[in-house]
């Protein structure tokens, strides 16, 4: 089972990534009340940091994303997950900005997480890994920036769980964030979203190969459970209209139903493929930890329930974006962010983009999104004194 052997290796020694090591002198203080130490952050950078270190852009990835935002993924060999947005001449232009994309704490692509080797035992952490939060991820990213000698970011951008990190960045380190782009996200996970995550986690934990979270030690892998979790989640990233447009009721490689439980329909075949492909690159325990981090996220909760307090006096400029067909993080959630920012007198732009592509729209070809991100960053760049591209 080479994939089982592969995953801890990628978790400990990620390919095509930079690694920042944080020793016993620099522990990560977690919301759970414990310290993670030592730990490492795997990250990628694109472009060049300018002389006054004012052009750094932090990209925060979503639940199943990683640091390979704008270059070939070392495991799947596919293009970076946001190559339409980040790269030379793209809206987040790597010829203008120094882009940093770290793998989050708890993930499985080289930053310390449950599939990493615990140096104290020499074995994978598994469920001994402490539960982490969005704020822990952001705290670790701030340590990475300290390590890189970057005091303030020109921008922090991300969608979905990445957007949650963006909001947390703006709340935790307002002086370090010149502008923030939270896309298709919310300041808290709704009951419905927690419910979907719970179904995914139960699918993983119901797989006998999960082995109580000790599958790496026992040379097993809860592939079926993780694939089912991914299949269920994937539906929430799309929309009814997008599924209908893409698949309708079309049969897969056949004219008639087989009167069996084969993948008769194209949409079934597609979801099975999504599940199988996901298992190749993702760790089941990481999926548990990261979905938990999203569930726990409630920014207002950290500020007496008043979201505006999270942004009181913020100097950061915000550009909030939502999509009409996103029912996982609907526009009403973005509007709540905007209301809080207005109440805090923050400088905020808010655009809702018409699309039938659902939550996933932020990762896809959406020219209006690109125009908005480009325009917002150009405007902010002028105020920051970043020379416009000739």
């Amino acid at each position, binding site marked *: 089972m080479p994939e089982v052997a592969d995953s801890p290796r990628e978790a400990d020694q990620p390919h095509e990534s930079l690694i920042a090591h944080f020793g016993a002198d620099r522990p990560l203080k977690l919301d759970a009340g414990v310290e993670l130490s030592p730990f490492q952050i795997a990250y990628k950078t694109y472009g060049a940091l300018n002389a006054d270190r004012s052009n750094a852009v932090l990209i925060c990835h979503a639940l199943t994303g990683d640091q390979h935002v704008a270059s070939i993924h070392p495991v799947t060999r596919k293009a970076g997950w946001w190559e339409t947005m980040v790269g030379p001449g793209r809206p987040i232009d790597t010829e203008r900005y120094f882009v940093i994309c770290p793998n989050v704490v708890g993930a499985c692509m080289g930053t310390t997480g449950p599939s990493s080797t615990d140096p104290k035992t020499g074995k994978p952490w598994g469920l001994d890994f402490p539960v982490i939060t969005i704020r822990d991820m952001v705290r670790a990213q701030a340590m990475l920036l300290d390590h890189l000698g970057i005091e303030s970011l020109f921008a922090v951008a991300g969608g979905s769980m990445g957007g949650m990190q963006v909001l947390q960045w703006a709340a935790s380190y307002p002086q370090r964030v010149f502008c923030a782009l939270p896309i298709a996200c919310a300041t808290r996970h709704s009951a419905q979203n927690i419910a979907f995550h719970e179904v995914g986690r139960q699918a993983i934990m119901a797989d006998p190969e999960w082995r109580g979270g000790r599958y790496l030690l026992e040379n097993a892998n809860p592939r079926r459970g993780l694939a089912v979790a991914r299949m269920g989640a994937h539906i929430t990233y799309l929309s009814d209209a997008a599924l209908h447009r893409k698949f309708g009721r079309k049969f897969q490689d056949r004219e008639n139903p087989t009167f069996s439980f084969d993948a008769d329909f194209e949409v079934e075949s597609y979801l099975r493929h999504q599940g199988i492909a996901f298992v190749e690159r993702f760790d089941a325990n990481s999926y548990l930890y990261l979905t938990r981090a999203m569930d726990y996220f409630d920014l207002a909760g950290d500020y007496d329930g008043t979201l505006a307090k999270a942004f009181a006096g913020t100097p950061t400029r915000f550009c*909030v974006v939502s999509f009409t067909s996103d029912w996982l993080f609907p526009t009403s959630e973005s509007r709540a962010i905007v*209301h809080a920012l207005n*109440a805090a007198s923050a400088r*905020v*732009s808010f*655009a*809702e983009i018409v699309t039938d592509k659902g939550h996933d729209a932020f990762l896809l070809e959406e020219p209006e999104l690109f*125009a908005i991100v*480009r325009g*917002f960053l150009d405007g902010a760049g002028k105020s920051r004194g970043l020379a416009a591209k000739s």
Partner: protein
Amino acid sequence: MSTLTHAGSNLNAASVTSTPGTARVDLVLVAQMVEYGAKVLDVGCGDGELLRLLSESRGVDGRGIELSREGVNECVAKGLAVIQGDADTDLGDYPDDAFDYVILSQTLQATRHPRIVLEHMLRIGRRAVVSFPNFGHWQVRMQLLFAGHMPRTDILPFSWYDTPNIHHCTIKDFRQLCGTIGVKMEKAVALNAWGSPLRLNAPWWFWNLFGEQAVFLLSRKG
């Protein structure tokens, strides 16, 4: 009306036409009522033309609210701080004294509750600038009186059945509303059908008859 100070001497046809670019005259008039470097909220900012003008000519820190999604997205893509929202429902979210000026440019007549909108504007901002098409203009009166149909003019081009303008008012009506809610009128300008400001010392009835549109600078009383 004696408390009204007419627009300052900088406000004349020459300065209007000498403004760089091809900005609309009424927008230039609005912009000239705003102090340099002020913090401004433009309610119903459309495609962001006024915000751009304010930013370039007055160096303001400008924000906008716009109902139409197309307008908002165009503004944001221009780098303007604009959100999608409704003047009738979303002004309540802003705290008191958040802005130096709140501007309502050619939007008052399209709001559901003009009085509440105006009250919010002067709660959120120390001052308000309101521009609107004058329904008392002689062309409007003539169309209703002699042609017997709902007026359609260059600045009010809609048919009665598809107009977004649901609360037309005259300059006189607006002044009365300001009196009713206790708002101080600091400056006022009326433009004739050719976009030139009417004489400052003309009586109000003259403005109400020959002003095609009006711009008011308002502040809280007391």
